[in-house]
């Protein structure tokens, strides 16, 4: 391993954000979540537990804020403190936003989290030394640290429950950071099959666990590079551009009839998840 090699591969090692010299070539995985369709039923979260070997930490640790839900459903109320929540609640599924210029990536001392050519924000458990700097610098706070050694903790995976564990991804031990990966194990097996057949993954061929389970189809996921993919169409239609920190929607004139937005965009992490604003009927 030579220093020159390090310098050569620097740009690949750190894919900043797409309007720099290296745009995404084959894949850019992205998501869009329709908050008007999301009912907050928590199915996605449970599906994620099932797919990604998430430990159930139990009441006491949950109380200490050590829950490991990679995707969490947040429930907000209207803040014009009215007597009743007569507009209902507002639900928001929050998971790692797979930022293009991810604040977590630059700070990791050992480069355990960095960007893949497919625009994923990879978290490499076996490289992680647990400095937790990434979580400290994450604006969305969607990174979850293994505070205990869950595989050996009582009642996390008691015999025979460990037989349910998904062999496609590592079971994390104490002291490593983890987070939503867009179900990377599914993405890579799909890419693998596609490559064997000498093609690209086509839209709908691969689904994330949350998307697959979502009963109202609120979550759509796909390849932003492929203009035919549903996600690409949605982003296009909502005039949300990956490499911008201010979208047409926020412009003074025009764009008001759009409802696509990205959370904390002004911090310029360039998230890969677009949310569609919840709609409420004004007639009633």
């Amino acid at each position, binding site marked *: 391993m030579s220093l020159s090699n390090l310098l050569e591969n620097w740009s690949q090692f750190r894919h900043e954000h797409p309007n720099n010299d290296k745009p995404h070539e084959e894949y850019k995985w992205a998501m869009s979540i*329709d*908050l008007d*369709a999301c*009912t*907050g*039923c*928590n*199915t996605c979260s*449970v*599906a994620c*537990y*099932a*797919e990604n070997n998430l430990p*159930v*930490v*139990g*009441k006491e640790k*949950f*109380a200490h804020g050590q*829950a490991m*839900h990679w995707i969490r459903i*947040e*429930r*907000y*109320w209207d*803040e014009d403190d009215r007597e009743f*929540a*007569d*507009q*209902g*609640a507002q*639900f928001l599924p929050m998971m790692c936003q797979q930022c293009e210029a991810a604040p977590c990536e630059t700070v990791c001392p050992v480069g355990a989290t960095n960007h893949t050519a497919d625009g994923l924000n990879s978290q490499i458990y*076996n490289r992680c030394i647990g400095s937790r700097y990434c979580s400290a610098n994450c604006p969305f706070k969607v990174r979850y640290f293994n505070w205990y050694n869950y*595989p050996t903790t009582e*009642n996390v995976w008691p015999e*025979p*429950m*460990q*037989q*349910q*564990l*998904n*062999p496609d991804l*590592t*079971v*994390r031990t104490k002291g490593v950071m983890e987070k939503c990966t867009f179900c990377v194990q599914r993405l890579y097996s799909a890419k693998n099959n596609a490559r064997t057949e000498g093609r690209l993954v086509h839209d709908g061929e691969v689904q994330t666990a949350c998307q*697959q389970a979502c*009963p*109202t*189809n609120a979550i759509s996921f796909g390849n932003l590079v492929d203009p035919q993919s549903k996600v690409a169409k*949605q982003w296009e239609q909502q005039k949300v551009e990956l490499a911008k920190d201010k979208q047409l929607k926020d412009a003074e004139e025009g764009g*008001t009839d759009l409802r696509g937005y990205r959370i*904390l965009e002004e911090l310029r992490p360039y998230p890969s998840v677009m*949310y569609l*604003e919840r*709609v*409420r009927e*004004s*007639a*009633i």
Partner: protein
Amino acid sequence: MIENSFNRRDFLKVLGWGGTAVALSGCGNTSVEDGKEFVTSYSEPADYEIPSIGVYFNSTCAQCDAGCNIMGRVREGRVLKLEGNAGSSINRGKMCGLGQAGVQAHYNPDRVREPLLRNGNKGETLTWEKALSLINEKLGGVKGEEVAFLTGGISGHAKVLLNNYLEVLGSKNHYAYEAVSPGVVRAANKKAYGVEMPRLHLDKARVVVSFGADFLGAWVSPVHFSMQYGQFRKGSRPEGRGVLVQIEPKMTLTGANADHWIPIRPGTEGILALGIINALGASVPADAAAVAKDYTAERVSKDTGVPAEQVGKLAALLKERSPSLVLAGGAAEGYAHGSQNAAAIALLNQVLGNVGKTIDASDTLQFTQIAPTTGSRASLQVLNDSMAQGKVKVLFSYGANPVYTAPASMKLVENLQKVPFKVTFAHYLDETALQADLVLPLDSALEDWGTSVPEYLVDAQLSIQQPLMEKLYPNTRGIGDILLALLKQRRAEDYKAYEDFYSYLRGAMVQNKAALGGAVADDDSFWNATLSSGIVKLPSAAGSILAKVSAAAIVLPAPAAEDASYPLHLIPAVSASMRDGRHANLSWLQESPDPLTTIVWDSWVELHPKTAAKLGIVEGDILEVTSRSGSIKAQAYVFPGIHPDAISVPLGYGHEAMGRYAKGVGANVFKMLDPVMDKETGELAINETRVKVSKTGQRVIVVKDEGAAGGKQMGRKIAVKLSADEVDLSEEV
């Protein structure tokens, strides 16, 4: 797929050494470790069994009565995850959290693994042969009518065998019991539309007004309705984006997603329905108008607490946007006059002319013997009475946990003592199993063969349930196999052809393959096709729906009077994951936060801020909730989604048994319900209980996902909403 099952089993053995080790050792050692682990090796694998590649098998979800069609991902002989079956008209590849947790029900560490015979307070293991012969011997002396069989909702071939067995025993006592079921609404539907469970079309409605039907949460067929809801909200629909109005005293998940959630005084739903009819004005048919005429906006708003102009707005909306759909659900039905409420609501539907448009009849099945027997609460009452009179000598119970779900006032445990011999077919040692004399361990839903017909029929279909992997424990058996064995004790001749339930099932299906759409195929290919699709189309006749609510018959009582000693209404909440508590021992569900309160691993008391202020209660206070029939202790949670006259506590918590994840978590509300029944159906009126609340002085930190900011966004742009008139949704992808 199960023919070469022994490979699968060998396979598991190998995994016992290798696979699971791999799964668990995580980030452990960092160097190559030759010669330590075993290679997964087969003796005689099927072609599809390739290491590292998951294969999907279709089956049916047994987590609730909706009976979604699922497929299980099987890898190296282990079922890893469940997904929806895309070919299903019920759930089109989708699932709910409850269903996802099905794998945990299968791998649950607290499953019963051996037959157990009561000896004092202990259970002693015994062999199946002994157990079955013991049953036979106990049945020896008793008359047919002294044998009772308690089940949950049941359908398919298991039901056929069950009925055959009861017939053989000469007993008519089959009690199908569901602790939370839309029993009243079913009856009301029967009256109003001529069918118990009409097909609903939210996706065709422009407005949905739901009187406490939590169709996104736990009502009837949540996944199916959620899918429809997804459509319903699409602006690109020809009907445009649908509007949902939810009317209920306690906000359900559906209420939380409504465009407008209307808190109503508990029990006055029917009054509001008639009020709306009244407000509709001219277009209303005479008879309905006659009933509704007294229900002026003023009176209605006085009775229901819903502002008068709100009623007007609602009527206007319904008039302007047709077709609409009006639903009656749990919150409306759980009263002594529940049937009347439901009828009034049905009348509103009829008046709006929705019948036939957004409500129609599901097909009627020809094979009635496999059609679902739906559970009700009334049936348990009947059983309980005859037990009290000592009329029951042998009691079988399967798929129901009455000891946990029956109100204390029923004295169920006491009456069970009067039954000399109680057999329970159980997955876990739940409260009911602990009362039994003989506990027979069941296969999990992912190990067992079976068929079922969903209670809510989208199209007439039979869902196949097939094993997704080898049994985890050699000494568990499927209910079908058990019933078959019991039948063989009596009718060895008739059933000798069938060595096990699988062969019976296959036989039964193949016999009728012509009717089941396999006329041309030979037996094997028909059977294989059946297994691979997991769904069989059933012969059926198009059902017909009527609109025959007799307006005249509707008599609504005045709103319940104030009760000085028990000022508050208790609304027991049926949550999507806990339901009636049958899944309380699945840790994923315990840890998945309740959507509205985000509380985990405990039960709680919901109060409106006003009520809380009046009683000086803050979040985390441990409250004692007392009714005439009992009391519980639980932590307070103050939030704006409940009517000030009501408090709500979720059902399903407070198990005294049933395994490590369920036992001792929260408090059991069932116990404290007052024995008030719906006048027409005899269903327990679960919302009739009046309670008083007092502080115990203790205070805890509520364990919830919600942070210190509560439900506030603090001026950050996180979850944004806009009003429908600001945006053009028609073109959206």
